[in-house]
């Protein structure tokens, strides 16, 4: 990415929440292509002062919530989400945005998006976890596909891009209207990206999804500019 694409943007402060899970290095590198002020932090004030927040994460639902709780970040993240500024959950981070998670028991999530996180059902000819590249189909209707995606993180991403997944659990939004994109794995269709106003979640890893993923990150950061 050229420097000019950076210069087109104001310099929003993007805070990646460090709550003890996940490989933050590559996410920071991906964001740094589109903005200069990228901070990895577990500090409440730093997070609250952000223009955009990313909730990353890999691993189990309960461990993720526990990581937030230990750092007193549950309220902080909820408050940020309520502020109307853009927030993006990635993989476990997206799962935590839901009301309940059912990995190794039943656990409360952040409740930013109505719905739950459940295991993949038994699949034919496909292994769990899903590890690899799969297509996301942005939700669109024939007439206004572009209108639906304009202004979202999937704006002008090439049609049905291949992105990288690594997960055993899936997002189940209560409302169809929160589904931004879906994906089929082992014959099972699931929600791979969600949106509720300023709140976004992707089950895949945009920071690991080559140029298509970088475009999604660029779009997200633009929301804050």
């Amino acid at each position: 990415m050229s420097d000019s694409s950076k210069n087109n943007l104001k310099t929003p402060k993007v805070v990646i929440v460090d709550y003890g899970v996940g490989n933050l290095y590559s996410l920071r590198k991906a964001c740094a292509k589109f903005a200069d002020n990228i901070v990895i932090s577990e500090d409440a004030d730093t997070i609250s002062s952000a223009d955009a927040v990313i909730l990353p994460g890999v691993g189990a639902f309960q461990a993720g919530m526990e990581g937030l709780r230990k750092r007193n970040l549950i309220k902080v993240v909820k408050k940020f989400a309520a502020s109307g500024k853009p927030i993006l959950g990635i993989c476990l981070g997206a799962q935590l945005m839901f009301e309940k998670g059912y990995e190794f028991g039943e656990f409360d999530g952040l409740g930013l998006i109505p719905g739950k996180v459940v295991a993949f059902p038994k699949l034919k000819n496909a292994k769990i976890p899903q590890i690899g590249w799969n297509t996301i189909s942005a939700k669109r209707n024939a007439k206004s596909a572009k209108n639906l995606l304009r202004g979202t993180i999937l704006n002008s991403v090439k049609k049905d891009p291949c992105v990288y997944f690594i997960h055993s659990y899936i997002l189940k939004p209560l409302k169809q209207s929160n589904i931004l994109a879906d994906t089929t794995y082992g014959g099972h269709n699931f929600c791979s990206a969600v949106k509720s106003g300023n709140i976004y979640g992707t089950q895949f890893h945009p920071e690991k999804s080559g140029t298509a993923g970088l475009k999604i990150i660029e779009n997200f950061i633009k929301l804050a500019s």
Partner: protein
Amino acid sequence: MENVRIIPRLDIKGPNVVKGMHTEGLRVIGNPRELALRYYSEGADELLYMDIVASLYQRNLDFDLLKSVADGVFIPITVGGGIRSMGDIDNALRAGADKVAINTYAILRPEFLKEAANKFGSQCIVLSVEAKKTGDKKWEAYTDGGREKTGMDVVEWIKKAISFGIGEVVVTSIDSEGTRRGYDLGLTNAVTSFSPVPVIAHGGAGNVGSFKDVILNCQTDAVSAASVFHYQDYSIGELKKFLKKEKINVRL
């Protein structure tokens, strides 16, 4: 069929990517960062980054080198070599790794796999197995870059590791490695036939047909190779085009 992943493998020794045959006779291939960037731009689905002497010399990975490789590469990186503590895994993840591959230390202390999977999640823990044929449908697991025998049967070992929560397994055939004579289909089949977790086949990639053979005969989830990419027999893009034409799903 899901997309089969094509995974170039970088064997790291000191500051260089090296390559040998049967894990011996190492030659310097080039700069890890340059190779990683080339493979990323050619359409590699992941990278396998293995420090092949860290374990032997009881050293740690060079995390700064790993960072320099991870910097420009926006695909997953699995990192192995000398991983023997939770701190090592944490450091690797903080230097750009997405998953870690564990061999030698897991053989010494199998419970380490369980502890690592519990802390970092199964998806993060890849078992690396170096297999040498010992008889009809029998393979023994080796450690330290194919140097040390373990006396353990490859299939039994992988079954145990799966029960401990690993999320993926990369199986290297020491006999085929670096020969360009094709993958060890017997070995790969012996693992894919039972494994509930994804299997990456490694060792012996020759012409593009050898990829087709292992994918169609063994239903492997991913295929890794080094020499054929390092010496530019063909690019990853060319390989993927060939596979697509053969009706094998790959990400183009």
